[in-house]
């Protein structure tokens, strides 16, 4: 199935999504990598407010290439980064901020899948490295916070317009496309590959 959704996302819309579905996203989203995830959690733990209410928004694992033209930031290239690095933060991040969609590449683990199920959220993937294609769905930079972390790690606030295709890889039933992949690959390793090189 193909869906066109707007942020802030509603729980009932997100709960309809299943792994393999395609989503095009419009509205506000933020970028956050390791350092921004860490900062969000630290600020919230010390009782401080975030620069933006993230409830219902999407968080994109991305460190963009940007340039400043006539005082305005322009996104030049902005594909996803490897989501696995954010696995240790994501469940808590989702719980404390209320984001309903994580966008990245390469898959996430069981803690994120459990959080998606419990909170009504999804993890979706964009084609890794397809940075110019991705930038086409990013209409403008609304703001940027925490540039002290460096350009890739800063929190970029983006207005998306039909950003996608995003493939749902973890849905709110907890189904995980990449956990299934891992099982298939391990089976192939044992049954097809090891016997050919003399291992049982």
């Amino acid at each position, binding site marked *: 199935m193909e869906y066109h959704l707007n942020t802030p996302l509603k729980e009932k819309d997100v709960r309809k999504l299943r792994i393999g579905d395609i989503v095009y996203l419009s509205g506000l989203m933020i970028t956050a990598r390791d350092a921004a995830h860490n900062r969000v959690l630290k600020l919230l733990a010390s009782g401080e407010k975030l620069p933006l209410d993230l409830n219902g928004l999407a968080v994109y694992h991305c460190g963009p290439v940007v340039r400043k033209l006539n005082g305005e930031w322009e996104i030049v290239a902005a594909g996803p980064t490897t989501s696995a690095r954010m696995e240790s933060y994501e469940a808590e991040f989702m719980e404390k901020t209320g984001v309903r969609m994580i966008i990245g590449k390469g898959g996430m683990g069981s803690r994120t899948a459990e959080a998606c199920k419990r909170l009504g959220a999804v993890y979706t993937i964009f084609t890794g490295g397809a940075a110019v*294609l991705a930038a086409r769905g990013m209409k403008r930079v609304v703001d940027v916070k925490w540039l002290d972390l460096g350009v890739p790690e800063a929190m970029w606030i983006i207005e998306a317009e039909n950003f996608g295709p995003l493939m749902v890889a973890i849905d709110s039933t907890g189904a995980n496309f990449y956990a299934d992949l891992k099982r298939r690959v391990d089976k192939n*390793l044992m049954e097809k590959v090891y016997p050919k090189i003399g291992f049982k």
Partner: protein
Amino acid sequence: MSENLESVIEKASILLLKGATTIIPPDVKEALIKARDGETNPLAIAQLNAILENCKLAERESKPICQDTGLIIFYVSLGENFPVKGRLKDILRRATVKATSEIPLRPNAVDVMMHKNSGDNTGRYIPWIEWELVPGSDELTVTAFPKGGGSEAPCIAKVLSPSQGLKYAKKLVVDTVAEAGAKPCPPVSIGVGLGGTIDVAMKIAKKALLRPVGVRSNIEVLANLELELLDLVNSLGIGPHGVGGKTTALTVNVDYAHRHPASYAVAVAFNCWAARRSKMKIYPDGSVEFVTHKILNEWWR
């Protein structure tokens, strides 16, 4: 003359970086098209089509193929009679700074101890330069090799015992690819280095990635090993971005060094689907030849 030549090297190096980061090498593009055309899994076809469409847009709009424009690595083969030698390091560093703002590239050089991004892709030892001195030559050959982070994470080097040998080296390769899964942005290019000390094994594994896709080792036993490993890796079924399918790797390139009697070093190095590398030659008269990205010759004139 020498000052002019220095300026030529700097300008050509900026263009070299532009070619490396915005135009997919022709051999890699051809391999991606071949993978797409031979694929039957619709999810894998969709991923490969997105990749190819992205490459087309990047080239047309002169924008980086991937937002991770890498940590900048140069391979330099310096002819012993080439007029500029000692200043090359500074020239390549300056070219990196200028390329970062002109192309633009993402600033990716982070101070390990201070956690601070330098903002211009230079820093301690960075850009890293691999030097080779070429006896009797008067040419300078530079390959720009911007190295992305995602496909660096699964790289591994290990010293096996000689009794384990090649059998366990093969196991290390397939285990590492299986464990990496979708994370290094498959279809990947894989470099394998055997022998030497652990650092030598990784260096030759990395250097093997400079060889174009589809060009097998000129050592027959290695060429056969490359085909065997490619077949093994592709039967894992990871496929483009882990959605399944036939092509997990575009190529496996192997090289070896003589080993110590007591050790059998193995290194496995990855490149993502965007196996970015761009090579040029500069002659003492200041003429420049872009070798991998011929289109740069037109832009240079």
